[in-house]
């Protein structure tokens, strides 16, 4: 940042390329994902001459970024990717945007044409910092080798401090070749330091509101996971201490265990009936590390109409952005929850037991609508059934799940249970088809002995299928569980419900034979289309020590319910045909 070069002068002399590798080592990086090219050759030369950092050769730079995201989300450490200039950098843009919207800490290093050629439309020149400025938390173009070390350390700091996010450091080739001084980790400027402690008075106010609440609900999100395992632990304590029901966004699944007593399930557009109704009917809404995304709120003016809203978030811009908040608390979730628990127990505070019991009874009634019920079949595999079986056969294992984007993603969120944080990686904010497969590669690199499954749709999966090469090369036993409906299912569903059943371009035509495709890459393929064979086929997948493409042919026209159509309120949910609740009648069930 500011040119504090005095320590750099006393630092060790080395080339910029060596400095890159040294800085990564000093940051404790053990794995990087990348793809070489002219503008990063000096860095690749240095990577070649060392053994501390493993480089994973992806097959497309988008794959490198998503793999770094998967690594980051499953470990809590920043993910690192290296791409070349021009097309390498532009291929990284989708991944960077994905990481920005989901607040995932990743550090991307891009090569750039030499400084003296910048601006000349040189071969493979792109204005990388210009292109990535709006899709990174921050980015840098380093023009002097003396500045490189401190910039790299600053990059790791910015990526991980406060609300995490992607950063990019653009490094011209001459800066990689030139020699400069490297002063180690301490040389970064320390100015960027978002506040982590929440305001005491606000925390007290929240504790008071919790005492008198009659219909409280915790609404938690990815911020709990990003805050680290301690935050999830404290959240569980808080829920146990209060007995308040808890729901979570897609991003926050696992922070509170799905088997937990107070668990309502996910909320939002495809959230559970009881979760959304609780949001609508509550009188105290405690939002923890979530941001009132439109997939969560539905129609804003009908959102949780009778509640006091508390909002805990490390990013001041999340507060009052969408929903007016009564008790805003800026701070890191773990820090704030610790203080809140203290404020709660120190005051010897008690909840309104009687009101809570009534509230729980009401929630029980909503739960009894059984909103995830579906009509099973013995002829064709229902996607929900496939996930129920996958859950039953894997839930006790050391398991990590990634997903692509579409109906299968929502079904995975509904039918799989997450007991711990960092076990669930899905593209929430950007909804990036093609995220899940490379993410599963990143997760498996970080957890070589764990079971890593990517729950995929056939269309999404094809978007980054080139990563089969990566999976095979590095012997990553990732399981690609494709719910193949031969449709862009989510698009088809919207067309059915909102566009008069005009199915414009939502077929997956000319699909590959996935078993042969797997074999062509040297992996195992499994085809399953009969519900009776499903368990055996899943076991075969699990037992195979290597990457598997599981082509699960499922019902083509299944819709994902419950669903809050865009622009509707939480109590205007569409329900599946089997569920006993109906959208309109639901309004009457709201407590006032």
């Amino acid at each position, binding site marked *: 940042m500011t040119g504090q070069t005095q320590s750099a002068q006393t630092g060790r002399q080395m080339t910029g390329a060596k400095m890159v590798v040294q800085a990564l080592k000093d940051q404790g990086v053990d794995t990087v994902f990348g793809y070489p090219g002219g503008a990063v050759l000096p860095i690749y030369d240095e990577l070649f001459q060392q053994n501390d950092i493993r480089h994973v050769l992806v097959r497309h730079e988008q794959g490198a970024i998503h793999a770094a995201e998967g690594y980051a989300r499953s470990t809590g450490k920043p993910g690192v990717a290296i791409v070349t200039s021009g097309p390498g950098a532009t291929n990284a843009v989708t991944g960077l945007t994905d990481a920005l919207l989901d607040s995932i800490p990743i550090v991307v290093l891009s090569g750039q044409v030499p400084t003296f050629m910048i601006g000349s439309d040189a071969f493979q020149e792109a204005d990388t910092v210009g292109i990535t400025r709006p899709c990174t938390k921050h980015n840098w173009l380093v023009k002097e080798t003396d500045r490189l070390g401190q910039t790299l350390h600053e990059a790791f700091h910015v990526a991980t401090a406060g609300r995490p996010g992607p950063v990019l450091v653009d490094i011209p080739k001459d800066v990689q070749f030139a020699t400069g001084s490297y002063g180690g980790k301490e040389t970064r400027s320390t100015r960027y330091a978002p506040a982590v402690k929440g305001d005491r008075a606000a925390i007290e106010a929240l504790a008071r509101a919790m005492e008198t609440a009659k219909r409280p609900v915790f609404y938690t999100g990815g911020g709990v996971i990003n805050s680290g395992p301690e935050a999830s632990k404290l959240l569980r304590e808080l829920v146990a201490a209060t007995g308040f029901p808890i729901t979570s966004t897609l991003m926050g699944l696992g922070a509170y265990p799905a088997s937990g007593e107070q668990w309502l399930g996910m909320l939002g557009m495809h959230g559970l009936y009881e979760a959304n109704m609780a949001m609508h009917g509550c009188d105290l809404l405690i939002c923890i590390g979530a941001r009132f995304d439109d997939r969560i709120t539905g129609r804003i003016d009908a959102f949780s109409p009778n509640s006091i809203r508390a909002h805990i978030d490390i990013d001041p811009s999340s507060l*009052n952005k969408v929903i007016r908040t009564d008790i805003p608390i800026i701070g890191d979730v773990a820090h704030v929850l610790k203080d809140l628990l203290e404020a709660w127990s120190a005051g010897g505070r008690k909840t309104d037991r009687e009101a809570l019991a009534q509230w729980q009874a009401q929630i029980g009634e909503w739960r009894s609508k059984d909103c995830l019920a579906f009509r099973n079949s013995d002829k064709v595999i229902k996607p929900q059934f496939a996930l129920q079986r996958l859950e039953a056969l894997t839930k006790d294992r050391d398991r990590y799940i990634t997903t692509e984007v579409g109906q299968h993603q929502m079904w995975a969120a509904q039918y799989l249970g997450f007991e711990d944080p960092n076990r669930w990686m899905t593209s929430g904010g950007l909804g990036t088809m093609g995220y899940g497969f490379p993410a599963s590669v990143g997760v498996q690199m970080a957890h070589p002995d764990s079971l890593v499954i990517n729950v995929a749709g056939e269309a999404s999966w094809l978007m980054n299928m080139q990563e089969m090469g990566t999976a095979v090369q590095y012997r990553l036993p990732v399981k690609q569980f494709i719910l193949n409906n031969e449709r862009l299912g989510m698009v088809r569903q919207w067309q059915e419900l909102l566009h008069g059943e005009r199915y414009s371009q939502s077929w997956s035509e000319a699909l590959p034979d996935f078993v042969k495709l797997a074999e062509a890459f040297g992996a195992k393929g499994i085809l399953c289309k009969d519900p009776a064979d499903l368990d055996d086929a899943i076991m075969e997948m699990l037992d195979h020590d290597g990457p598997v493409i599981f082509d699960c042919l499922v019902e083509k026209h299944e819709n994902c319910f419950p669903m809050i159509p865009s622009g509707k309120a939480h109590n205007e949910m569409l329900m599946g045909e089997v569920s006993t609740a109906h959208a309109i009648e639901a309004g009457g069930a709201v407590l006032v």
Partner: protein
Amino acid sequence: MLNIKEGSTSHSAYNLRSTFSDVEERHTLAVIVENEPGVLARVIGLFSGRGYNIESLTVAEIDHTGHMSRITLVTSGTPQVIEQIKAQLGRIVPVHEVHDLTVEGPTVERELALFKVRGEGEHRVEALRLADIFRANVVDSTLESFVFEITGTPDKIDAFADLMRPLGLTELARTGVAALSRGPEARV
């Protein structure tokens, strides 16, 4: 329900308003930034990317040794949007401080403008007379033109422009607003 004082700084978002009002307000912000490459693009990109208004923006380095620049920004929006703008600005890594001068107390705002007015005879005399009333200086003159320099609030410059138009205004350059809080205290 909270008793926290009104007004906000870069460190506090506790500027509690009971509802989201839809009345548009005009605010003058002072943003202290590290003068590094691209910092202005970040600020402008934020406004265009999120659909906020910029009525005026001026920037110059104010601390040459510390490489700090001061951006004076005039924007308008509902109170909620103004709060968002400040919070979003505060998120930009090289932004050190965000001050809402409109909220923090009385301020002086000044803008400098140059006017080229071309004309002869009566018009020329009238232009010079009005310039005198507005305390505009003549910084260039030929037998058929003047360049006036005028400093004042944006309103005053607007008013002067309205008067000069029929008298042969041919070109106008404005700097945008610079603003400081009144009184002895340095707020920024």
